[in-house]
Each structure stands twice: as structure tokens, then as C-alpha cells.
């Protein structure tokens, strides 16, 4: 169960390959990657602030919760902070399980909780200025299904 919080870019394909190669006994691997959108050319990038110390602890807690709820062989979370350009990967999760339902549910659960319970804050750097991304009610509501 690897958790990485880093400013450096990561290679999504290499991470998925490495994760998939070592999940003995799993029949299903799900990955999710979040990308910086360019919003039709109106976004020049994104800056992500986080709470060093709490961030990894919060993510580990979320991963442990997922492990307790579903039958998982392995899980991976990588989340960047700092400045990112459009098209760059912001973060990824991967889950491996004997069966697909568990792998999908755990990946969605991780995403829903990382979105609203891990201490990251996104600022969009636009052509016309910069603005903190507001949390969406839909993201808070998404937690209620678990």
C-alpha cells in the first residue's frame, strides 16, 4: 500500500505497469488518473497547496478504511503538490482485488475521500488571474454513499 505525496511529476503508465506486475492473485486492477484540464485554453496551469505532515497521514487513513471495507490485494495513491501545467497528471489511485466489483468500489471510495478529506487545495492559474477552486456540494454528497 504505497502512498506518495510529491512535487515531482510521475509517469502514469509506468506506475500502472509496476503496480499490475506485482499483484499476485488479483484478477482486477483499476486505476484512476486526475489530469489538469485546460478549460478550452483558458487555464495556464494549477497550483496545489497541501498540509505537510497531515496529508500523508490522512491519505493513509483513507487507504486503511478502503482495505477494511473491500477485499484488496494492493492499493496505491500518488498525489502531487506545487505547480502543474495543463494535461499533467495531478494524482492517481490504483486498486487490485480478486474481483472487479471490489477494485472499482475501492477506487471510487478512495477518490471520493481524497477529494474532500485529504488536505489539498487547488488554485487555478488562468489567463485572467488566479482563483481557489471551490469545493462542490456534489463532492461532499458523494461521501454519503459509502
Amino acid at each position, binding site marked *: 500500500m504505497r502512498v506518495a505525496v510529491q512535487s515531482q511529476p510521475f509517469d502514469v503508465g509506468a506506475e500502472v505497469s509496476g503496480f499490475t506486475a506485482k499483484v499476485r492473485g488479483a484478477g482486477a486492477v483499476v486505476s484512476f488518473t486526475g489530469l489538469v484540464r485546460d478549460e478550452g485554453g483558458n487555464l495556464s496551469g494549477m497550483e496545489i497547496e497541501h*498540509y505537510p505532515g497531515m496529508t500523508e497521514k490522512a491519505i493513509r487513513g483513507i487507504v486503511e478504511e478502503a482495505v477494511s471495507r473491500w477485499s484488496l490485494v494492493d492499493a496505491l495513491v500518488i498525489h502531487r503538490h506545487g505547480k502543474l501545467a495543463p494535461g499533467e497528471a495531478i*494524482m492517481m489511485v490504483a486498486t487490485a482485488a480478486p474481483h472487479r466489483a471490489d477494485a472499482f468500489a475501492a477506487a471510487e471510495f478512495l477518490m471520493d475521500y481524497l477529494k474532500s478529506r485529504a488536505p*489539498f*487545495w487547488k488554485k487555478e492559474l488562468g489567463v485572467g488571474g488566479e482563483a481557489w477552486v471551490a469545493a462542490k456540494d456534489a463532492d461532499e454528497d458523494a461521501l454519503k454513499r459509502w
Partner: protein
Amino acid sequence: MGVFFEVAAFLAGRQVIDVLYFAWVRERIGLPRERIETSATTVAELVAELRAREERYEAAFADLSSLRVALDQELSSFDAPLAGVREIAFFPPMTGG
């Protein structure tokens, strides 16, 4: 400030806490962290104390429903007690993922 400062505060019935600010809370207050000595017993009391200080704190804490708080790096609530807490952080709802 160090140990002497903390011991003196403790003897005076007060505690020393690291207060951290993130995202627009940090921007409004104008600094990422500060160490304060307080006799507040709950988060809400500490917030009231900070708001009374200066306009920039008043601006940052005007709407508590748009704020979250963590005590020693665990999400908490504004009515939580401060006893034993070393680090408190204020920030907007998180937007990771």
C-alpha cells in the same frame, strides 16, 4: 520561544499552540503559521480571540461554515476542546483528487 516560554504559559493556566493557515485563509491572514499563547479552552474560543485581534483575522474567520479545522493533524470541529493540542490548522474545504 522554547521550553521556558511554554512552561511559563502552562503555570499561568495558558497554553502555547502552533496555528497554521492554508489556501485563502493563509492569504487573508497574510502568514502561513504563527505560535500563540492562549487561555481559550475550545476551538471556537480561540477563533473569537483571533477575530478580536485585527481586521485580517476578522476577514478570514467571518464565515465559519466555509472553514474546516484540524487539531494535531486530525479533522475536528469548532466546539472541540483545546486541552493538550499542540497544533491547530484552519483552512477552506479541501479540493484534492
